[in-house]
């Protein structure tokens, strides 16, 4: 069996090239791969395209906003490209206003489904979400079962950074509660999937096959979060 266990986060992100598309899961802090993001910040790759629910800086800890602020991102594909409150000026908002970073705004369900389509080998899909709004302008429309839909395309990643609760040596992953969020579709949509794991990685066979959320075939590299890692 191929060894997927890496000794450090720095080693796990080594060689990630400039210009890559990187997928960052996480919702309200849960399932957010902060240790891998910190390692990518140290690694310094630039001209990256990020796929994430938002552009980060949700709290004062490391998140995708750290990479934005460091000038490593050239574009963000998100469901939020404005701060949660007009008075909150995040580094992303400042750079976006100055045209120093590009962005694509996607409804959250469409964002998730575009990644699912990429992972599932689906060439695109029609959704009623955003029909009649300015986000649907210029997109192919089609009436299906009496309802108008717009065509959306798959969204692929070069890398996905994943935060899991448990893993085995084969790379099978389990998540706990709402930590799961975008992790599953991102692991499937990306070419290289790198995982930070909250528990000690167990031998293959120790996790129940019926309770696997991401099969190990999608997983390339794993690092157990050390006691002095970023836990929340």
């Amino acid at each position: 069996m191929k060894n997927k266990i890496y000794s450090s986060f720095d080693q796990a992100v080594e060689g990630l090239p400039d210009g890559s598309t990187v997928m960052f899961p996480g919702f309200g802090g849960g399932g957010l791969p902060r240790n891998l993001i910190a390692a990518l910040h140290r690694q310094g790759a630039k001209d990256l395209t990020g796929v994430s629910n938002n552009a980060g800086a949700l709290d004062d800890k490391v998140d995708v906003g750290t990479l934005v602020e460091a000038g490593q991102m050239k574009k963000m594909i998100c469901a939020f490209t404005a701060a949660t409150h007009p008075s909150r000026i995040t580094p992303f908002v400042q750079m976006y206003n100055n045209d120093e970073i590009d962005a694509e705004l996607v409804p959250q369900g469409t964002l998730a489904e575009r990644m699912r389509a990429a992972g599932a080998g689906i060439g695109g899909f029609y959704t009623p979400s955003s029909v009649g709004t300015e986000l649907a302008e210029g997109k192919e429309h089609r009436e299906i079962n009496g309802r108008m839909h717009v065509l959306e395309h798959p969204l692929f990643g070069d890398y996905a950074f994943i935060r899991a609760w448990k893993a085995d040596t084969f790379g099978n992953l389990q998540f706990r509660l709402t930590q799961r969020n975008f992790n599953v579709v991102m692991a499937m949509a990306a070419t290289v999937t790198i995982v930070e794991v909250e528990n000690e990685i167990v031998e293959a066979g120790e996790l129940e096959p019926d309770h696997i959320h991401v099969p190990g075939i999608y997983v390339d590299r794993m690092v157990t979060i050390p006691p002095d890692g970023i836990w929340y």
Partner: protein
Amino acid sequence: MAEKPKLERQAMCDRLAMEFQDEWIVNLGVGMPTLCSNYVDPSRDIITHSENGVIGYGPLAEEGKEDGHLVNAGGQFVTAQPGMSILHHADSFAVIRGGMVDVTVMGAYEVAGNGDFANWRIPSRKGGGIGGAMDLAACAKRVFIAMEHNTREGGPKLLNRCTLPITAPGVVKLLATDLGLFEITPEGFVLREHAPGWNPEEIQELTEAKLIIPPDLKEFRFRA
């Protein structure tokens, strides 16, 4: 002259929550609508859904008892309850687009008499915050809105047509503001209940759209 008291946000959300029916799957948006969860009639059997992939979660967690792995759509720590289930993000939106959500409650900048509403972008700012709002607005069975009746500058928010980019066309069914409860019908806004001390003429004066005043207009209902 002292300004007349308007309805509190909690009262607005309580009123919308009174409309929830047994076994409805309810999705509460970020911000004011989460207040709906403070009042759910105990005799009603409501099922909560949050777009980050949880069905059947309980009330907000007490301080010190938060579980870092369990949050609602607003990122607030909530509690587990019997029957709860977890989905990944794409499946959670399959629940939404698949038509399983009976009602979504959201905030808004503007609502129009044709049922359009706007809550994701202000043209003076670059970018926007859509989150799950467009999927929910397009696909939930009902869209309820909770918002202040007027802008901070006193401008109208119940309009003939939205001026801001809309979130979805023609979907709003019920609206609670700090001046009353409004139903949106094919004919436009119907004032169903007025805030105590406010008469229909005073409410109309603060509203751009023409309000329909039904003969059975009532005073706003508060939680028992």
